[in-house]
């Protein structure tokens, strides 16, 4: 009888320890998501209204040119940002892994931008990219009178400037993660590759990269969350401009929550953002669990 009680208590203790966190997740995350869903189905303005208007807000959302532009911008930004960060981070990690002297200093230098806030990064890059006072003006003063680099005020190219600023900031983090992964690779692999006479770049591409799978996965998840959250860099650099060229969903939602006093439309926008993330992440997680179960059953 006593043994049974002890067993029960041992089983119960972990759940008790997890209970506060579980409660917070339930109420704080799920509860607020459900609340946003409720508000998005109402006609709330500054304050929540307790009526039900069906999918009117969603219809309004998808008739809104600014929202559609922000989705387009987010897709473009996501692809470019994640690809550029992974490639640049990987190259930096590989070069640092070559047992260079001063490795510690280099690692700090490359990781330093990540210590800055997005706002500070955006502001400084805005100054650099300003056609009148920044890089364009500097190169012109050096003698190249018709050098053009006014992307930040160009309707079609403003988004690329945001990619530049945020890739500069986040590559260091990717480098740090991939460097840690590279350090975990067995020395024997290199010896075997040298014996087989495989060129170094081929070793990296076909052997090392697949082994870095988990590290790349981690970096990808961090970058993906940064993409969905993109707000402060846009506000600091272009305020969504010129016009609505560099609008992003997070900024659309924030503007409508406060300035436009339309929390229903903002909630509809945030539910759509959540659905987009679920749609993109769910197949990935399903595939991962399939791979995991296959490995386990072996």
């Amino acid at each position, binding site marked *: 009888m006593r043994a049974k009680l002890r067993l029960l208590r041992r089983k119960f203790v972990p759940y008790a320890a997890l209970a506060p966190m579980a409660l917070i997740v339930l109420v704080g995350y799920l509860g607020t998501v459900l609340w946003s869903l409720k508000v998005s189905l109402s006609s709330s303005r500054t304050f929540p209204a307790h009526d039900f208007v069906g999918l009117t807000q969603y219809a309004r959302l998808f008739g809104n040119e600014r929202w559609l532009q922000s989705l387009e911008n987010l897709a473009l930004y996501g692809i470019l940002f994640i690809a550029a960060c992974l490639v640049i981070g990987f190259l930096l990690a590989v070069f640092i892994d070559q047992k260079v002297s001063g490795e510690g200093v280099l690692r700090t230098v490359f990781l330093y931008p990540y210590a800055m806030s997005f706002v500070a990064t955006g502001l400084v890059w805005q100054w650099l990219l300003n056609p*009148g006072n920044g890089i364009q003006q500097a190169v012109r003063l050096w003698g190249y009178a018709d050098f053009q680099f006014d992307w930040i*005020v160009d309707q079609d190219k403003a988004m690329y400037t945001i990619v530049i600023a945020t890739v500069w900031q986040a590559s260091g983090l990717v480098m740090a993660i991939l460097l840690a992964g590279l350090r975990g690779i067995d020395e024997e692999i290199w010896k075997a590759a040298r014996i087989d006479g495989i060129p170094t770049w081929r070793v990296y591409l076909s052997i090392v990269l697949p082994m870095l799978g988990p590290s790349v996965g981690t970096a990808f998840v961090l970058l993906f969350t940064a993409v969905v959250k993109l707000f402060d860099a846009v506000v600091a650099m272009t305020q969504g401009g*010129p*016009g609505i060229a560099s609008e992003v969903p997070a900024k659309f939602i924030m503007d409508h929550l406060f300035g436009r006093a339309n929390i229903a439309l903002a909630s509809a926008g945030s539910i759509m953002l959540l659905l987009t993330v679920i749609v993109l992440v769910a197949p990935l997680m399903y595939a991962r669990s399939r791979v995991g179960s296959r490995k386990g059953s072996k």
Partner: protein
Amino acid sequence: MFKARRIIMAALASGYCLAAQAAGPRAEVVHWWTSGGESAAVRKLSEAYTAAGGVWVDTAIAGSEQARSVAINRIVGGNPPTAAQFNTTKQFLDIIEQGLLNNVDAVALKEGWDKFLPETILNVIRIKGHYYAAPVNIHMPTWIWYSRAAFKKAGIANEPKSMDELFAALDKLRAAGLIPLAHGGQSWQENIVFTAVLANQGGKDLYLKILRDRDPAAINSEAFKKVLLSFKRLQSYVDPGAPGRNWNDATALLITGKAGVQIMGDWAKGEFSQARQVPGKDFGCIAGFGANSPYIIQGDAFVFPKTNNAEAIKAQLLLASVITQPAIQVEFSNRKGSIPIRTDVDSGKMDLCAQEGLKIMKDKSRQIGNGETFLNPDQNGSLADILTAYWNRNVAVEKVQKDIAAALRN
């Protein structure tokens, strides 16, 4: 020995209590007047309130949207300030409808606000017969400023008296190598340029049909199409560095004589006076084209969050009364660049442009509210989005008309 000390302590204690009671009604005021000129102006209000026996606790928050969000969050959260700044627009209509504001009927009726406040302001502060805000000033957002030095360099002898003359002057400025129209590429500034064109070219009737009545027939009309085309035409006179520029940097272009014209509110006067420029000598101000051009009214007001605390209510009523007195109105407006809410003030102490504004205000038929007095923040914001997209991109004007009709429909 001990008795004496006890008596002294008792005397001090009672003296302190008396002093604490003598300190008048405490008013915590949330506002967004943080620039140099604005701070000087709000200091006049706090000095007047202190002289009337109150205690002013200043809570300045930079950024109008942030200040309003903080005020709303505090009102909902149960820790409201005594007064909060809003614009004289529909921004606080939702809060009134939720029953979260106190009214100041006692002051409004005693001092006869109905008699001297412009109709457009009364319409936003007087809801269902109760007065929910104390207006502080009147700003006109669509003054046309010009640099006399730039005009001289371009050979423009007289100030433009119509839209066509304005375009001619802008052409001359461009030919002289100057920036014709100094503009900051932010959507609220594009909204101001649009409002100026609508008022000056469209006229008062079209203005009211579009912004007050939201009449689809008027929005799709030829006259409004011409207004939109003029608006887009002004964009061609703007320099490439305009996107994202702040309004005061654009005014700086006029001050240094690099640009000719700016369409901006009367708060720009503060920039000119900081640079020690004098109206009529260094720069000029045009309220509108024609003798009957509409004078667009927007402004700031204090709202009074709901509270049952007797001291706080006393503070609210005292504040409402103090800031609407003629003398304080002139002091405040001189530093802020606005004009007083009442025309029965001594305008001798105000500068040329303010005096002209006050003169026009006396003609009630020319008073007209800003878009935000008719549209709620959501409608106004949607309109601003469409206008800024049209300003920056090549969109067919018919599509713009359709989009505006859709945005203003609900």
